[in-house]
């Protein structure tokens, strides 16, 4: 808000002049960057394919119907694997994330200088790497299968859960902790009576939230060989069995909807 005196008149402007110019400058720079990036993309694009795409899409859609329903019978086991990958991966992540979060939170870390940076690095590296990349890595190392999938989901979720959890720990009410300390409680007791009850709701919320995400992510891990329904998806696409693909996609859709419904119910029950 700026008011400028101009002779007798008071002129009101929304912003100071310098600030307004800075904002315009930022917009200009943003547009320039976007235009540049767009040019790079279009250089690498064969526009003939793009113009042809609608026809391709119609063609693909035609080949996908009617879904080959009897294929569903072969999907129950992969779906069960997918569920296990998501659930066990989440459990594994939570078990590791709890100590990491306590080490990363400013108010509970054993050492701000030594332990905290390590915990933060674990969090950021786990989060930066997508679960599919984790799966790719693990499949190369320990071979394809459900175990690689569980580990991939687990490794990816540690950072996510630990980050949200340590933010919750940093936001607790210090007075309650102080009160428990004042009774002469030992360190572990202060943790169990003063801190844990305060972060329990956050912990439950984070677990459910991540489980829901993990269901979605574990449906594609099979693309790199890490088990679950993604294996069937990959196989069906590479053999051009489009009617099977549509069944798989519908199965994924249903799973995601059910998991979303379950997590909404559980969240509602907890809060």
């Amino acid at each position: 808000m700026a008011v400028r005196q101009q002779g007798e008149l008071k002129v009101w402007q929304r912003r100071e002049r310098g600030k307004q110019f800075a904002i315009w400058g930022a917009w200009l720079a943003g547009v320039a960057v976007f235009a540049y990036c767009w040019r790079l993309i279009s250089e690498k694009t064969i526009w003939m394919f793009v113009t042809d795409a609608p026809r391709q899409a119609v063609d693909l859609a035609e080949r996908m119907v009617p879904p080959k329903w009897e294929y569903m019978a072969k999907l129950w086991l992969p779906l069960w694997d997918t569920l296990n990958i998501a659930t066990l991966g989440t459990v594994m992540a939570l078990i590791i994330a709890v100590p990491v979060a306590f080490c990363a939170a400013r108010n509970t870390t054993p050492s701000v200088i030594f332990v905290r940076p390590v915990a933060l690095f674990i969090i950021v590296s786990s989060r930066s790497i997508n679960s599919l990349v984790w799966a790719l890595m693990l499949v190369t190392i320990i071979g394809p299968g459900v175990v690689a999938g569980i580990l991939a989901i687990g490794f990816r979720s540690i950072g996510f859960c630990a980050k949200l959890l340590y933010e919750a720990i940093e936001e607790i009410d210090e007075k309650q902790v102080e009160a428990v300390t004042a009774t002469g409680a030992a360190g572990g007791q202060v943790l169990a009576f003063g801190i844990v009850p305060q972060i329990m709701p956050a912990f439950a919320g984070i677990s459910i939230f991540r489980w829901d995400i993990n269901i979605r992510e574990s449906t594609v891990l099979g693309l790199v060989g890490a088990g679950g329904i993604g294996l069937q998806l990959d196989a069906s696409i590479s053999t051009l069995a489009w009617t099977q693909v549509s069944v798989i996609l519908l199965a994924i859709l249903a799973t995601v909807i059910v998991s979303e419904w379950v997590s909404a119910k559980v969240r509602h029950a907890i809060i």
Partner: protein
Amino acid sequence: MLRLEKLVKRYRTGDLALTGIDLEVPGGQVMALIGPSGAGKSTLIRCVNRLVEPTSGRVFLGDTEITGLSKGQLRLARRRMGMIFQEYALVERLTVMENVLSGRLGYTGFWRSYFRKFPQRDINEAFRLLERVSLDHMADKRADELSGGQRQRVGIARALIQEPELLLVDEPTASLDPKTSRQIMRLICELCEERELAAIINIHDVLLAEMFAERIVGLQAGTIVYDGPPDRLGPDVLTTIYGEEDWTATIDKVDEDELTEEELRERERLMSRAS
């Protein structure tokens, strides 16, 4: 019983909160600590149980020098000092009973306390205290379901179950309405008398301090500027503590007949109960 010698606290920001306090509180004495916000009242009582680490000076509880204790010894010493907090500081997501029992943590091993297997003696004592503060029917309610006055009574029970020799009370009435404030102060003083406890009560309400404490200490910018009985607390003294203001209304003693009928009845009820 409690003795402070040249207690100094300088915060890392450079603020000098306490400038060499010398103070002695004999056993069984209820002492009110008054003074404006930022005078160092909270810092002072937190230095006693070393929730705030004093910069220099010494604190003695009986024969123990609190300031020289190691971490483990400090925990044992803290059991002897019950603390009651402004805005109650209950662990809100635990039940009333768990909050009261948390006062026994210093006496209980980790796993026992973790699985809530407190000794039967502690549980009996907890029920007795809850009965004393008339909350035994609320034992399994969660602390955040209680009203302000009820929460503070739980806070009192938590402090007392430690079987302390000294109560450190930090603004116990700050977020309570006037009537509940009186009830809480009365309860604290009665309990101190019953158990022959010494108490330091931080309070910014001068009237309440005068009504309930036997001794008043005025703190101003980290220095004691008044130490004496409540009836010598004149306008000049209040001016040195708080600064220039019209104090006549504050000094008028609250007579019995100024209390409402309801308050009188409440007082009688409590008195008959205590005897």
